[in-house]
């Protein structure tokens, strides 16, 4: 084997330019693949993190059926004690209970309809970034305070400022009229127009009395430390949650109005669009990568086929001297192996260097800002390097190159030494 590798190495440099051109094609595509894949990993991660952190969270406990039909009556009882239990049992503070309702909100001059979220002032900042985005005023400090926090756009449209009063008018859980007066304590700017215009927060205690919730609420948000731990956390939560409260598999999709059954939904069930957007992007990206890889494979096939054909006489002589076709085949494969290794090493190294550099300074292109806003991305992207993102693309190129040289190598088995030695 040693001598085969040595021969293969020397054979490569019989045609320096050809070898470098083929290796060049590999380096170029490997560099692109490492960069693109790192960028993809980086942006997917950011997209998931930013979307979930702003509101949804990693896990939510809801009454079965609420996710498809978010109505005020689909709530469940004793939400705050349940959240307290979870916090204690999980020894994790990233747990917060919420209530969701719809109301008309009026200032002296204007009226708008919007979504009202009741939150636990002490715990909401641990599960969502919104409380940290206040541009003026402060967050709630009392769960029963008659206070409200609204978005920047809504504040401008209502023409109100910190300390101004707003009137809320909606329907309570039992259909009764819910009306109250609250003062604006904070104004947030999430940068997402829809959130800044269509969402407001109340302290959960006041929310429950205003909407006649009777201690009920709509969801408990639970965040994991890392996205990768979500599945584990979901199992743990399912063990903690009293068994009789949970909907069994067979009950799913058949909500029973009389009993309340809870379900634990992960971010993927709460925001199916997120994973699907990533999937759609993956499909088109892998189509592109596939084309690049096929083109490199053609390049290798061409080089190796030529290099075998031009050595017909040489191979004929070697066979006449007793070298088995299998060994010649191994030689050709070894040549490709060495060539692909060069492409892999240089391509992955250059690609990793480029991505590493950009993971600090960031990367942007014209028009990205507008697009990024749609997917909750910042206006610069940062590739995320990992062993997988470095070696996935180049590894496939390496493998496909070896595969492409199979045809030239197999041809050797059909070589007739006598006619081969006479070939021009």
């Amino acid at each position, binding site marked *: 084997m040693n001598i085969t590798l040595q021969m293969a190495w020397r054979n490569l440099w019989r045609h320096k330019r050809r070898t470098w051109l*083929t290796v060049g094609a590999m380096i170029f595509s490997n560099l692109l693949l490492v960069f693109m894949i790192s960028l993809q990993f980086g942006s997917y991660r950011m997209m998931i993190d930013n979307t979930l952190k702003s509101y949804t969270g990693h896990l939510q406990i809801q009454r079965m059926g609420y996710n498809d039909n978010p109505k005020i009556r689909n709530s469940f009882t004793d939400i705050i004690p349940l959240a307290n239990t979870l916090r204690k049992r999980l020894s994790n503070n990233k747990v917060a209970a919420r209530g969701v309702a719809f109301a008309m909100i009026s200032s002296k001059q204007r009226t708008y309809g919007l979504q009202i979220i009741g939150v636990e002032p002490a715990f909401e900042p641990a599960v969502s970034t919104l409380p940290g985005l206040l541009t003026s005023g402060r967050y709630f400090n009392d769960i029963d305070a008659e206070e409200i926090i609204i978005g920047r756009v809504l504040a401008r449209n209502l023409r109100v400022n910190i300390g101004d009063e707003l009137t809320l008018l909606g329907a309570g859980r039992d259909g009764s009229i819910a009306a109250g007066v609250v003062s604006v304590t904070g104004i947030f700017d999430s940068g997402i127009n829809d959130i800044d215009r269509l969402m407001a927060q109340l302290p959960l205690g006041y929310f429950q009395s205003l909407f006649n919730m009777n201690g009920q609420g709509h969801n408990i948000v639970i965040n994991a430390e890392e996205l990768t731990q979500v599945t584990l956390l979901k199992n743990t939560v399912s063990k903690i949650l009293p068994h009789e409260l949970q909907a069994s598999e067979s009950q799913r999709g058949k909500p029973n109005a009389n009993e309340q059954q809870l379900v634990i939904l992960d971010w993927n069930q709460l925001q199916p669009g997120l994973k699907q957007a990533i999937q759609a992007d993956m499909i088109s990206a892998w189509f592109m990568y596939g084309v690049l890889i096929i083109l490199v494979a053609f390049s290798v096939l*061409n080089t190796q086929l030529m290099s075998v054909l031009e050595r017909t006489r040489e191979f004929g002589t070697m066979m006449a001297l007793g070298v088995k076709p299998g060994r010649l085949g191994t030689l050709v494969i070894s040549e490709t192996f060495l060539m692909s290794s060069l492409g892999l090493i240089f391509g992955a190294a250059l690609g990793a260097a480029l991505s590493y550099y950009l993971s600090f300074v960031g990367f942007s292109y014209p028009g990205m800002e507008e697009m990024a*806003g*749609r997917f909750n991305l910042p206006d610069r992207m940062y590739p995320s390097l990992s062993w997988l993102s470095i070696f996935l693309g180049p590894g496939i190129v390496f493998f496909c190159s070896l595969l492409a040289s199979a045809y030239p190598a197999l041809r050797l088995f059909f070589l007739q030494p006598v006619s081969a030695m006479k070939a021009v």
Partner: protein
Amino acid sequence: MLTTLPFKIIFTLAWRNLWRNHRRTLIMLAAITVGVWAMIFMTALMRGMVDDMLDNGIRNLPGEVQINHPQYRDDPNINNSITMPDSQLRQALQNSNISAWTSRVRVPAVISSERDNRGVTLIGINPANEARIGFDPGSIIEGRFLGDANDNGLIIGAKMLERLETRLGKRVVIMSQDPDNNIAERGFRVIGIYKAKLASLEENTVYAGIETLQKLLKLDDKISQIAITGDNYRHIKSWYEPLRIAAGDNLQVLPWYETDTYLGSMLAMMDGFVLVWIIVIFLTLSFGLVNTLVMAVFERIREIGLMQALGMRPSMILYQILTESFLLLVIGLILGNALAVISIIPLQDGIDISSVAKGMEMMGTSSILYPALKLNDMLLASIIVIFLGLLTSILPAWHAASFDPVEALGKD
């Protein structure tokens, strides 16, 4: 005699040389074909997606150009209404490039059924004009479209119907605000249910007759906006400018790419993407192309030396190698383009991508993707491949032309 060869002979020589090593030529052709196919196929898919995104987006705005109160976009309130177009603006709207225009009332409102209530965008329309520019009557799946501007009915989305737990023919209450800040409310009968390409629309937009709403909201004949279309979003310059002048300073006239900057940037980004994609594929191909030519020259060193010894000018050798490259590129392009057309024809009826529909909706496209094969894109790909291909072939060709005949003849 051989100093200058007629083009025909160079061509014949190049053609025959190409097929001396048919395996190599075929592999290279296959690579070019796949490359060109991928360039055009991918571009057609992406174009189809962006076209759909723009069509949906502009239909929802609606119109390529909108006329609003200067404050309306920032604060879509009833107090930021405008009057019907005056004679000067009416004249500008007569422009032959404008195919339709319509006026609308568009205010935030609350809709309530017996079971639930929601915040919505309430739009008052002129049914006949609206159909040509914004709301598509074909999207009504149950019931009927509004008859005229005085119609007392309400059109709501299928999703909204579900949320409100109401039915066709039932009454719902619409609540909004009149210019004096009084609550204006009245009951409407649901006369039509529509299904939008983008599900999020269904949940937040309802339609009523414009005159009915003007009465309800005490607007007299005031409106929120005028939407104008020329049926071609790429060419609005010819009528947008005169319109802006005619509207004067008290009205804001905005083209679609400024009303929705996401849509505008998508169009620009798409054009950029097509170019980058074509060039990346080309670069990957170019390594193989140069390699093929280098090999072709290498195995003919003696032959080239002999031709030069016989008096053939180096420039003729250069032309010959370039012609070989040209032929290779042209055949590859023809095959690649043909393959692209053949592979797209069966997809004309659309590709069902509903498995990722919710993800596509984040981008603003619907769940069926119609590839858009454009002659311009095919030309662009072909011209770039020919031009850059010949450019990269100059090096090996020039190398061949600069052999020293004596040395070349001495090689074995």
